[in-house]
């Protein structure tokens, strides 16, 4: 039997277009290193910490699946029982689920996005889901402050340039039910709310400071039925979730017999229980309803055909998604900074991690919230601040690295200055390159450039 009747599906994605310069065929999104560990490992370790050891990892693309599968079997061979499923690219999250939905058997399904870096216990969402008997429960967390807020160099500018993408989320006054959800791209000037829902609730709290963390608990039968019947649904967030929220009050889902189409063994039990409950409810109606004295609420609960619930993460919890390049550098910064307990490393007295095999030249300083992986060499008079440096990097003298991520096998020659940038694996930077807020993808970068910030996110070189 699955644990607590929950099955876990990790949607690891493939070569995401959002992260296009960073991810590639060789490096699927799931394996993108965050603090020198693939981002997927954060999810897997979170689940492992919650005693969830039977997982299904869905990866887009055969090649990516092989890479991810290979990594998982190497890293978690004896700890987790993971099945890696490959789905064709571009099917979307709903499509990915559709292809594996026939394997699901448990009562509820926990769906976790593979790019989630958080310390919110998944059990909390699952328990909330159970407690409410909801059809879907989603984790909401406060949206992260975007941009390198504490660098002070160009944070202000960047924020101003980035379009502000708000999620509009409507909650009921008790903050337990999800009544409306529109994510950044869909929000135009006007928000359309359903009158019926509004009438039923009486009051709706609209929040823009929350973010959907892409950690959902679904009732399996409902999910499968939706996947079966709505072929066009592409994404959980854009199609399935809004659909469920929209149909909260109408009996569309349960009325169609979707819910009642339980598997044979379950059916009798459920009916049995219902019979007892209804028998009692008939004569003792008082005992089975919410103790909430507000008439509106109770009425609504009666009408509600299915519940969409939310679990709002505590503000002290860290929760972020690696869905953009900005997020990538943010998460890298946070994982070795404020959310350092996530990284799984033990920090030194200077609040940084320097692998014993790393070599530092004379007068080289590595500041707090830095990470230096094994085999890296730093020349003299270097200065590293709030940065992650990968394995086997060779860094010359007089190099400044601030707020950056340097991946594995990077060669940086003397006199370079790197700020707020991401430097991918196997890159070679020649002398006195000045990089500011950009990514460098491949091979050589020889010219002395002061890249303007407008090149952010788009710079592919040579």
């Amino acid at each position, binding site marked *: *039997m699955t*644990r*607590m*009747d*929950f099955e876990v599906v990790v949607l690891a994605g493939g070569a995401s277009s959002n992260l296009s310069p960073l991810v590639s065929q060789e490096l699927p999104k799931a394996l993108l290193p965050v603090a020198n560990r693939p981002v997927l490992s954060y999810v897997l370790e979170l689940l492992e910490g*919650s*005693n*969830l050891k039977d997982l299904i990892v869905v990866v887009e693309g055969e090649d990516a699946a092989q890479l991810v599968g290979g990594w998982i079997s190497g890293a978690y061979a004896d700890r987790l029982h993971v099945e890696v499923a490959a789905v064709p690219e571009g099917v979307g999250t709903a499509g990915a689920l559709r292809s594996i939905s026939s394997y699901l058997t448990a*009562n509820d399904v926990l769906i976790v996005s593979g790019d989630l870096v958080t310390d919110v*216990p*998944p*059990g*909390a969402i*699952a*328990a*909330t889901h*159970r*407690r409410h*008997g909801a059809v879907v429960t989603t984790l909401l967390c406060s949206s992260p402050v975007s941009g390198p807020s504490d660098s002070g160099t160009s944070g202000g500018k960047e924020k101003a340039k980035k379009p502000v993408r708000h999620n509009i989320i409507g909650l009921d006054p008790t903050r337990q039910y999800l009544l409306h959800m529109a994510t950044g791209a869909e929000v135009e000037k006007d928000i359309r709310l359903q009158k019926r829902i509004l009438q039923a609730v009486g009051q709706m709290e609209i929040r823009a400071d929350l973010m959907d963390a892409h950690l959902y608990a679904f009732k399996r039968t409902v999910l499968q039925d939706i996947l079966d019947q709505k072929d066009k649904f592409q994404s959980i967030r854009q199609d399935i979730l809004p659909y469920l929220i929209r149909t909260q009050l109408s009996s569309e889902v349960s009325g169609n017999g979707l819910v009642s189409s339980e598997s044979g063994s379950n059916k009798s*039990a459920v009916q049995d*229980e219902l019979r*007892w*409950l209804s*028998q*009692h409810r008939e*004569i*003792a*109606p*008082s*005992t*089975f*309803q*919410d*103790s909430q*004295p507000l*008439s509106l609420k*109770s009425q609504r609960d009666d009408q509600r055909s299915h519940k969409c619930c939310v679990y709002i993460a*505590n503000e002290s919890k860290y929760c972020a998604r690696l869905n953009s390049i900005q997020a990538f550098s943010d998460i890298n910064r946070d994982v070795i900074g404020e959310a350092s307990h996530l990284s799984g490393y033990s920090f030194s007295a200077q609040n940084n991690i320097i692998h014993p095999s790393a070599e530092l030249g004379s007068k080289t300083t590595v500041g707090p919230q830095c990470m230096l992986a094994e085999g890296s060499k730093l020349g003299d008079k270097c200065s590293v601040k709030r940065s992650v440096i990968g394995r086997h990097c060779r860094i010359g003298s007089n190099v400044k690295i601030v707020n950056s991520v340097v991946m594995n096998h990077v060669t940086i020659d003397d006199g370079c200055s790197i700020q707020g940038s991401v430097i991918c694996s196997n890159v070679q930077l020649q002398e006195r390159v000045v990089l500011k807020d950009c990514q460098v993808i491949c091979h050589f970068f020889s010219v002395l450039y002061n890249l303007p910030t407008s090149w952010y996110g788009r710079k592919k070189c040579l």
Partner: protein
Amino acid sequence: MEPRRPPRTVSDPKVRQVGFVTPAAAPPARTVSDTAAMPAAGASQELPLSGSSLSPVMIPPPRHDGLSARVTAPVPVPIAATALRLDNLQIRVGSYNQSEVLLGTPPMTSPSSRVEDAVSEFSDDVSASSLYGRTEPDKVGTAFPGRSGDLMPAKSVVAGGSIGGSHTPENPPTTSLVVKTLPGITEKKRGMLEKQHDEAAAPKPLKEKTTKAERRALQEAQRAAKSAAKEGGGADPTNTKKDKVVKPTPQKKDVPEVAASSGKKVDRPLEKERKKEVLPLRMQFDDKHKVEKVKQRAIVNQREAKSRVEFFQRLPQYVHGTQLQELEAKFFQLDAVHPSVYKVGLHHLSGKITGGNARCIAMLLAFKEAIKDYSTPPEKALVRDLNAKISGFVSFLIECRPLSISMGNAIKFLKNRIAKLPLSMSELDAKASIQSDIDRFINQKIIIADKVIVRHAFAKIRDGDVLLTYGLSSVVEMILVYAHEHKKKFRIVIVDSRPKHEGQILLRRLVAKGLNCTYTHINAISYIMHEVTRVFLGAASVLSNGTVYSRVGTACVAMVAKAYRVPVLICCEAYKFHERVQLDSICFNELGDPDAILKVPTHVESYLYGCMDNDNLQLLNLNYDATPSDYVSMIITDYGMVSCNQLLIYCSVF
């Protein structure tokens, strides 16, 4: 001749009602003789509660011999309350054969028609035959072995003391009664009862299955292993000790006293014996040592509230709100807890399911689910393993919220059923049998019991009555709705209290059904009591000294009602009875969220905002209180309407 006894004065001290008298003191019990000289307290003397003075919880030893020996004369004589108690008892014990007994009553074809009869008779306000003859005899016979007796005295007539309004307020529990029974005592029945009782007293019938020699051998082996281990590492003894500590008593959250002192080596059977005899004391949460122990085995580390009222320090009190989060966060770590049990626990904790009946039903259904999914691990006996599993569930539920007495009784029932399963039974059969037991318990002890109570109470409602109820009781609501549907014309006063405002739920539902309601808060109780003619109250439990354990405020309502000479009728299913004796609400209670009483609805901020951390401030939000039996005119149960004094008899059965 029917024994005629002087009516009991109400002012009897409660302690005497309890009857801490040795059974030897009971008079020889052939009541064919004239019992006019019987002392007023004769009844309580009959109840041998010796040996259990150590503990507040008492399990009375078998007493059927003395009681069943009394044979009543079948002549109807109006007698007083004390007599009623005894007679009921005699009736119950003595009755065996339904048909024999029902000779005097008109033959009833179906239960429904019988109920109809009952209703009509109720309206006549005299006959009690309907009280007793309301369910199919065969069904009751199987489910409630001790209950068939109640069906029998079809001729016993309640010449309603409280019905006719002859109810003198000075003497509320005095209900005169006319009893006419057939001399229907059969030895067979008696034997059966005794046997049952013995079985109940010995909850480990399994042990007897193995032969003595085998047990002896096993013991020796264990002892040898133990001593060897002790010499070796010395770790084993601590292990065994821990084992014992971990074993929680099912329905009470205590560390068994025996367990605490079981570090030394005692012969196992001896220990068992002692465990049986020395009843566990209630967990005292001001005992730091024990609290530490409990914490070790606790699932969640609950933060305890800081400022606790001194009087109630021994009760568990945790910072409200933290519990749910921690429990939720550990959702996947709790291996042993079945999902359905987990769900019920969360519902209890979050207050989604409240009320004794609902909580009990939810728990039982969850257990049923769990049992369905259960499979015996290899090399273990279903009986023992399943009972251990249920114990685990129960301790989880206790962590969510202290058990209600109704739940405790249900758990006791369930465990008893499991323990009694024959070893030879296949797993599938055993599981099916337990599941059907659970169903039957829910159906008969709760659902049908409620229906019966409704019909009993309906007899007490007359046109033009003003009924007062307090808070939200499912059975009272059913009574009111039922009476309304049967065209009684009455008015309802719903008294409510902060902070739960449960009365509003009742109010909304009743108003929606077209009942005429008045809503007020408990502050105004003395004002509104002028116009009230009956008070109907629900109860969480009725204890064996007649104390009614119920939602806090009930005692206040009952007291005011008594002062205004309004009869107080408590509606309580018999499965909620408990043999414990409690004299006040301090010795055992449940603490609610102390912050809940702070919130003032009209003010956004509490008046006490900012001084919450003051050491001088202590908040107390009690959940229950104990209403002394003096304030209760009558208790309506599924076994009929009884005065508080008779309760002990019923308590002894369940």
